[in-house]
């Protein structure tokens, strides 16, 4: 039985490795505060502010396309400064500015870190 499990794990790894290579993140703001700046270069949000984005990972066409099974994950390195959670709608994410400071948002595809985006939470006047 353990041999069969190993075989399944190897097969899963093989399946994962058959997917495409990360190229970029497609980001669209679909709701939230207007005084925010969201792009793959940087994210700027006010203290207590909220922004809803739609995010999709795009693959590098030269190295194969994603097959739709890839798992996109966005994580803030310091959740005391800002938080990001999955939204209700498909491919949607909600970013909150918790307290003023700087952090980075990690973009992971199938568990592998592909990109980091600087995040600044600004104090509101």
């Amino acid at each position, binding site marked *: 039985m353990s041999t069969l499990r190993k075989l399944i794990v190897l*097969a*899963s790894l093989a399946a994962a490795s058959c997917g495409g290579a990360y190229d970029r993140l497609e980001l669209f703001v679909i709701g939230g505060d207007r005084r925010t700046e969201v792009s793959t270069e940087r994210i700027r949000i006010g203290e207590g502010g909220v922004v809803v984005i739609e995010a999709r990972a795009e693959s590098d066409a030269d190295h194969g396309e994603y097959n*739709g*099974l890839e798992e996109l994950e966005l994580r803030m390195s310091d959740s005391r400064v800002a938080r990001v959670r999955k939204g209700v709608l*498909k*491919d949607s994410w909600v970013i909150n500015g918790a307290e003023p400071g700087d952090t980075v948002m990690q973009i992971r595809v199938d568990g592998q870190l592909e990109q980091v985006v600087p995040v600044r939470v600004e104090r509101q006047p």
Partner: protein
Amino acid sequence: MKQTTTSMMLAVAMAVAPVATAVTPAVAAASEQAAPPSKEALDQIYTDAQLHVERYNGNGDVEQLRAARQLLDQWLRGHAQLYGYGEQAVQARAPVQQQVAAIDEKVGEPAATPVATPAPTAAPAPAPSPVNAEIAARQRRGDQMFTGGLVLGAVGLATVLFVGLPALGLRNTALDNAQVQEFRADEERYLRRARRRHTTMIVTMAIGGAFTLGGITLVSAGAATKNAADRELALSPAVGPTFAGGSLRLRF
């Protein structure tokens, strides 16, 4: 050539050659205490006998014929030791016995008693010849490999066709369903389903592919083993039970 040889034969003083030993099972049993000769050794004996005949053809020396006759006697005994007294073996020795009789006629000696076929109740059942038993074992092994390869290949192909490919189709269906969902929870449910089917597809394709390749390999190896054994059986007729001396005819 025949007339010349016959006239030469008439001119030669006939000496009484030792009576050929009839290769009966009893006689063979006595000499069977020694190990039976190998196929190659029998080949050599027959070749030497032919050389003596060729020398006789060249110089008319009857002693050469007698030497050939002794070697053929030795060959007959060795053949009986190696291949036994089955019908095929007896038939295979018959041409050589005829050659011995022809030599006896030429040197003016009484014809050798043909190799006796044992009476069914008199002699024990002959043991299977070692050469044929080995070849038969290789043929059986080849058959087993061939059959095993067919079964393995069929299982592999069936796994790919009836499990792997359907899993691929179902995975794509789940992906398509996930694409059209509006809410994340619904999308993730279909994505989980698609990932399960994707894993099933990979595993069954890998196993099925390995089985198919293994089956092809076994079929090839089994066929090669069988063909090699069949070829060896066909080649052994030089001293084998079916074509003893067929390729080394004595010419007088």
